[in-house]
């Protein structure tokens, strides 16, 4: 769910404002318990999402799984309490999630990470090191396709031995090879003099 090329008015709002508003509105939604109020709010959130010209294809999978969960919740709530209660609960959740999607899909990944870093910046006084965090996050993204490749290789090799569905035979080599990759990368970083110590003691 990345705001690839969103240029709507929502994309120009500062991420901090969007995130803060989302938080406040989500808490506010819990104070409302009548569907007469929630239904217009739900329609508003849908309009908000559509007016932001988001790529609806990106929303298909998340909305599908959300709808499945909410369907179950709706039936259970209706059986346990009453219909009105179930409608209120499902409407509230849908409104909240649509607003959250609107924020996510109009904020670039970089801007979102930057916001998180700002929120977490007080941690610096507890010994967290921003350079180290940035290195960790970017390395994670870089390692994902590599580890996926390793996993598929290991699985194929074990399939050839008739062990493709044996979770142990796949996981152990995967973990060992991941640790090897980690060791090699750490050595390479050290060999190139990468120094992320916050300050010299």
């Amino acid at each position, binding site marked *: *769910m*990345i705001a690839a090329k969103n240029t709507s008015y929502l994309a120009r709002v500062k991420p901090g404002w969007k995130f803060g508003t989302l938080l406040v509105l989500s808490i506010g939604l819990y104070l409302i318990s009548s569907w007469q109020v929630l239904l217009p709010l739900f329609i508003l959130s849908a309009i908000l999402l559509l007016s932001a010209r988001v790529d609806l294809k990106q929303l298909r999978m998340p909305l599908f799984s959300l709808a499945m969960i909410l369907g179950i*919740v709706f039936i259970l709530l209706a059986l346990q309490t009453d219909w009105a209660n179930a409608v209120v609960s499902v409407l509230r959740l849908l409104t909240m999630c649509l607003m*959250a999607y609107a924020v*996510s899909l109009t904020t670039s990944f970089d801007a979102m990470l930057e916001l998180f870093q700002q929120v977490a910046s007080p941690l610096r006084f507890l010994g967290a090191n921003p350079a180290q965090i940035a290195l960790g996050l970017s390395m*994670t993204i870089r*390692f*994902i396709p590599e580890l996926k490749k390793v996993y598929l290789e290991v699985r194929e090799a074990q399939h050839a031995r008739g062990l493709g569905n044996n979770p142990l035979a796949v996981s152990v080599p995967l973990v060992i090879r991941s640790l090897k990759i980690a060791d090699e990368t750490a050595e390479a970083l050290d060999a190139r003099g990468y120094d992320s110590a916050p300050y*010299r003691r």
Partner: protein
Amino acid sequence: MPTRTDSTSQTRNTVYVAVFAAMIAAMGLLPPITLGIIPVPITLQTLGVMLAGALLGPWRGSLASLVVVVLSLAGLPLLAGGRGGLGVLFGPTGGYLIGWIFGSLVIGALFKYWVLRYENKVARFMSGLASALLGGIVVIYLFGVPWTAAVTGLALGTSLLGSLGFLPGDVLKAVVATLVALTVHRSYRGLMK
């Protein structure tokens, strides 16, 4: 030269966290394995969460889970089924995601200070399994179940009952995680020093 070793081990720790975070993420991208015994396909992501704790210890393990949570909330589609974004946090299953961080923390602490102290194989396995069950299931459900109940307004009991459907798969993952972690610890000593 204390400064030199400090920075070396810090870099190594960061790389370990990144690799395990990537492993958790990669496990969510893959088609799930279907096991013969259980008809439901299980995704391996919580296996990665358990392994991060059991192999890296409490701090690096929970950091690996935290990195996945942060990256997916920031918008990367890393969670099973290609989900990601803030909607996950505000949705009914957000608690499980937060629970991952504390799940790896608990498993890591138990492995470091309890499981790996045993020399006996059986004692190691039993204590390891107990840790994986406690951290990987009890702790994660402890966050997930009340979260679902609070967000949806369902009764706590119903929410718990709903999560029991995932219990067989999660128990199996705990068994696998324990066996894998103990095997790897045997050949890769000193991971948790």
